[in-house]
């Protein structure tokens, strides 16, 4: 699945400058607890979260996440966006709630990040 499809499904705003149609993603996870995201330290492509602070981008970076989606209309500041750009991480913002955002992407074929 392309990131452009994800953006469309979530009616998201893109906060960084990548060509979304050129980025493939397969797996995702959703959480506001970065500790839990790190606990399942398997490769995941998309992180959905309602938490907005620089540690979200750093957590994403540690796990090779290609795209962070901020749900519930959260607004990341310029410093966070710049950090994401530095680390080649796409940032999308949507007004969807976490459950709905995850549900829509799951239905569209995005898989949970799992071991093995």
């Amino acid at each position: 699945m392309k990131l452009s499809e994800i953006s469309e499904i979530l009616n998201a705003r893109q906060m960084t400058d990548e060509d979304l149609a050129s980025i493939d993603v397969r797996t995702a996870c959703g959480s506001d607890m970065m500790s839990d995201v790190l606990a399942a330290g398997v490769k995941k492509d998309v992180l959905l979260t309602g938490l907005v602070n620089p540690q979200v981008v750093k957590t994403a970076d540690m796990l090779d996440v290609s795209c962070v989606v901020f749900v519930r209309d959260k607004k990341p500041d310029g410093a966070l966006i710049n950090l994401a750009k530095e680390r080649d991480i796409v940032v999308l913002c949507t007004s969807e709630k976490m459950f709905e955002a995850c549900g829509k992407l799951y239905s569209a074929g995005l898989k949970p990040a799992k071991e093995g």
Partner: protein
Amino acid sequence: MRDVNENAQDILHLHYVVEPDNFAAAGEASSNVKRILKHIGVSPDVIRKVAIAMYEGEINMVIHARGGDIDVDVSPEMIRMVLRDQGPGIPDVEKAMQEGYSTAPDSVRDLGFGAGMGLPNMKNYTDTMQIDTEVGVGTTLTMTVNIPA
């Protein structure tokens, strides 16, 4: 912040100072190590393990221990991380190793950490982990991740 030494034994040595109470800056050392390991061609799986373990450790140092310093040695066989702080020490290591046990304040939980997963995560993602701690003196955490031949 960082000193790099490459000596004759193919060992890369990296040293970082973790600033106290600077939550926004926490994770810079781990991020730097991740970039260096990628640059020298270490496999992504090994890098992810090192990055997660070190990042959790770095966050802990900021949350609990007023910062500290980190030494990372990279040899062809393994990556060794030593995280030293002069924080409060861990009174009950066995308890601290239990998933979900946390002494972090709510302010830290609001930032997405303090779920009581830090030390268990570090143990899960490393091949060895040793905790030397003394209440009122500090904690030294030594972790290694093997590089498969």
